[in-house]
């Protein structure tokens, strides 16, 4: 089928004019930071997707298993997955043995293609959402990231897991099947170290994203995470957090967002006016602000407004 993407590819490959300059090959510069014994984190930029960062805005975690490394989330593109694969072999010659997707947003699972011959675990809701929305995400990611996405195809997770005790490649976890950031958000607590891979239920010094969010459910999920008293939290975006402050900050922001949008609806404001509202100091310095706040207005306001305005007939 001749899709927009293939057509653009064909057109681009036509020798219409000689190239005036050669573009350097795009490459991710990934670094694994050791956090605890046998746990590494690759910390993403706290910005929005851009041609400069190539979509490397997400945190990826690696943990030692019995037969290789367990990988939590696979990044934003095939090329990112390739870079992860190479990096992992430097840490453990056997490379990656098992993969987990915390949820179905593209920066967390678009590297799956590289690991398609290994088990890729996720919640059932995540697999379904990746099947339903993956292609639309891919269209937008190609639009935003261009050549960084070359060759990337949507590969949904293959193995559905439930909550409770879970052993992945010989390592014991508590699996917490939650939701609120999306319709299915998996958080995994490493039994050995008390490290919590929180996915995008937790953001730290980076504005939370809300395209699939249900704010009350998200707050409940944060309650559940806090109750596990993790020794170390690896948020989906932002630095690792041994204090629990990342959960508090995410909770504070989401509560403020809800009340700001409801307040706007109750004073007759429209979305453009709300988008132009200055952010409180404690949120203005977060990564990807004010863009994420403005996106949240678009995601959440129409429904909130319907709830707040009285019936007129």
């Amino acid at each position, binding site marked *: 089928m*001749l*899709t*927009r993407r293939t*057509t*653009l590819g064909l*057109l681009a490959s036509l020798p219409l004019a000689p190239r005036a300059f050669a573009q350097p090959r795009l490459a991710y510069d990934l670094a694994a930071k050791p956090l605890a014994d046998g746990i590494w984190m690759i910390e993403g930029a706290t910005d929005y997707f851009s041609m400069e960062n190539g979509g490397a805005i997400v945190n990826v975690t690696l943990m030692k298993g019995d037969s290789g490394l367990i990988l939590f989330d696979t990044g934003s593109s095939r090329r990112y997955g390739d870079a992860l694969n190479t990096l992992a072999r430097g840490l453990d010659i056997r490379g990656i043995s098992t993969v987990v997707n915390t949820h179905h947003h593209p920066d967390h699972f678009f590297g799956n293609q590289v690991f398609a011959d290994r088990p890729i675990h996720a919640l059932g809701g995540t697999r379904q959402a990746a099947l339903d929305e993956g292609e639309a995400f891919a*269209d*937008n990611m190609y*639009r935003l990231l261009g050549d960084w996405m070359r060759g990337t195809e949507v590969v949904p997770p293959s193995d559905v897991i439930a909550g409770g005790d879970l052993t992945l490649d010989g390592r014991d976890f508590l699996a917490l099947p939650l939701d609120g950031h999306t319709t299915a958000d998996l958080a995994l607590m490493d039994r050995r170290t008390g490290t919590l891979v929180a996915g995008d239920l937790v953001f730290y010094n980076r504005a939370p994203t809300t*395209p699939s969010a249900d704010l009350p459910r998200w707050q409940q999920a944060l309650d559940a995470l806090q109750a596990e008293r993790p020794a170390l939290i690896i948020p989906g975006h932002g630095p690792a957090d041994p204090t629990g402050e990342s959960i508090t900050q995410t909770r504070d922001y989401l509560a403020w967002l809800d009340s700001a949008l409801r307040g706007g609806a*109750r*004073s*007759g*404001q*429209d*979305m*453009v*006016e709300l*988008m*132009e509202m200055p952010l409180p100091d404690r949120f203005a310095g977060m990564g990807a602000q004010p863009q994420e706040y*403005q*996106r949240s207005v*678009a*995601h959440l306001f*129409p429904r909130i*407004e*319907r*709830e*707040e*305005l*009285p*019936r*007129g*007939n």
Partner: protein
Amino acid sequence: MFIRTAFAALIAVAGSAAAALDDPQTVLQDPMGSGMWNYHQKGLLGDPADIRFDDRVVVRAPDSAEDSLNVPLLVDATAIPDVKRIVVSADYGPIPHILTYYPEQAAPKLALRFKIDQATAIRASVETHSGSWHIGSTYIDAAGGGCTAPAHAYASDDWEEKLGEVHGRLWSASGRARLVVDHPMDTGLADGIPVFIIEDLSLQDEDGTPLARLELHEPVNEDPAFTFYFDAGALPASVKVMGRDNNGNRIRGVLTEGELN
């Protein structure tokens, strides 16, 4: 899709050669440089002679459309005296005309939402009672597809019961009237779904005198949402909402300063 791209390439080549034949009588320098403005100046506005781009017409919108089905826009022509109507349009899209606003007793300022089909320049063309036109512009980037997707309403089976439901309120102290009307606003471009849109919507006082009036077209968003702006204290205690869609369904509601939910 391929045909469209190839056609655009042909136009780009041919356009430079065949200038001037279809130009409007007053040719403007388009600050957006979007290539379609001359055409709309004739087709949408009727090729007026007295026309200019004017920074006093402010069009506020996000740089990029996060949700193609709900793009917010705020048009403000309060710096232009004696406004008769405001034509809001998109340069690129299957249906360029979004709506026409007749402010009547309201300020020439309106907040609305619309469906966007691709990245495009957006225009607010303001006509005064003396017949001069003043145009404001902005540009919105978009992934697209907003005009050719079926309405969300059809995902639920009770949309007919909600049809024409009005939510809204007056804020007399700040001179605002806010209004949301439940309606699928089908563009006719989604497979097998004919055009089904609200065409007329107005605010009236108790005696039926129009306070502000809208003519809506297909690109207005599903469940249209508007803020109308009046002078502080100028709004009556209650305002009637009167409207009609292209299937003859009437829209009736009353906005007051009443309690919020």
